[in-house]
């Protein structure tokens, strides 16, 4: 069953290093395609690292499939998801900037559906 989460895309130092190495190489691709989930949410949803989930943007219905990793320690509170900026997070963003020039790029409501291994 799908559950609503708030997705926070952001920078990571690994992603920054990956930009310098090359956007088509492993480090960058691994960063932008890994969804961090809070340990409590991982346990509750029966998720293990490497499992696949489907995210659906609540605003535009855009869907992506992504691999999960467990967020370190208490870095991420339950109910929040984190992913490094990149193709996945851009797909989930809406085009409307609400008169600001800036699409809502953080705090995106998404439905999460567990797909399994």
């Amino acid at each position, binding site marked *: 069953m799908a559950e609503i989460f708030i997705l926070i895309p952001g920078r990571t130092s690994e992603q920054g290093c990956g930009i310098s190495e090359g956007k088509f190489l492993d480090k960058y691709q691994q960063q932008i395609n890994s969804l961090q989930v809070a340990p409590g949410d991982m346990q509750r949803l029966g998720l293990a690292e490497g499992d696949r989930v489907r995210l659906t943007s609540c605003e535009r219905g855009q869907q992506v499939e992504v691999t999960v990793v467990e967020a370190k320690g208490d870095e991420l509170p339950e109910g929040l998801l984190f992913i490094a900026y990149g193709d996945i997070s851009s797909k989930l963003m809406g085009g*409307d900037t609400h008169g600001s020039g800036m699409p809502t790029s953080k705090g995106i409501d998404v439905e999460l559906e567990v797909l399994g291994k």
Partner: protein
Amino acid sequence: MATVESSVPATGELKIVEDATCTFCGCVCDDIDLTVENNQITKAKRACVLGKAWFLNHEIEEKPSCLIDGKPATLEQGYDRAAQILTGGKYPIVYGLSDSPCEAQRVAVSITDWIDGTIDTTTSVCHGPSGMAFQGVGEVTCSLGEVTNRGDFIMFWGSNPAESHPRHFTKYSLMPKGMFVPNGRKDRTCVIVDVRKTKSAKAADIFLQIKPRKDFEGLWTLRALAKGVELDPKVVKEETGIELAVWQDVMDRMKAAKFGVIFFGMGLTMTRGKHANSEALLALTRDMNDHTRFVAKPNRGHGNVTGADNVVSWRTGYPFGVNHNRGYPRFNPGEYTTSDTLANGEADCGMMIACDPMANFSQPAREHLASIPYIALDAKETPTTRAAAVAFTVATYGINAPGTVYRMDDVPIPLRPAFESPHPSDFDVLTNIERRVKAIKGISG
């Protein structure tokens, strides 16, 4: 055809470049000592993890300097085709600029003016909302040098410098010993506000984990406390996720500070509220000057995004999102900003300079960009260069190309390139395109 094979200098010399400038992030550290062997940087002394990746992974792209529709072409053919594209549309856009030196940015604005186009920078999807807030509220500000020498209360709101600006704490804001903070970190109080307990949180004396999308409410809570307004503890806790007593403690420390600084990041500008969030933070900073000295600074991401704001402002009067279609500059974020001109399907051709909208923009914007002819300038291959009608591989600014960049506190810093590239610089490419645009438009001089 200009190829790498034909023009790479074959040198075996070892060179030390002192005080080189790192242009990866807005800190623009200009104290890096580079060791260069055979046109490869082998050491980058004092560089952070991002700076080391920037310098040590740098390689000259082994591809032609120009591709037209994915096929190798001469630079002259590329300049001609670029000028034809830019002068052939009804709604040309020029976008990017934050990883180009000011000299190249200046030419990009000129081209936009000649073609009655719209110019925008990556600021619009970074601190553009803060730019709007500066116009509404004003900016109480200072240089990073003043932060180092005076700052005794340092707050980071929606910013994670430990990952995005790794030398921020050690070079500028927390650790350095300064004229009025002789004991460095011991003389400073650090407060970090974020929705996540980021790697930066470890550096804080007080970490406030605010509810997502409640930054505006948190900032107005502090504004109320600064003015001595009585608040309902239950409502404050419900709205912000943080006890009123904790907010009050922070406000007491802010009032007790001699020189307070609030650094803020895209946790504010990219979240619902956007410019209203930045306005609240700038207004809080202004309010605090009734009690003590307080300043605010956006933590800027790209190496010369601050230069882009400055150059576009000098040339047009506005910092980003500027339309020249009526023959004079008009500023309207939400209309002339690139996310909008693309997602709304208005732009019919463009030039993407040192940016990667095909990776970072919303899906509707990316789909429209893929459907129009555009020129791309980048030192590396990206999703944007791959889909470009004309793609120029350019020399990397700061490593191969000279120029001027602006640090995040608007301080201009010269670049000290380590070695030459066989590829042209952004400035070279844009200057040649400008000449051809002027010729097509019948503009002399």
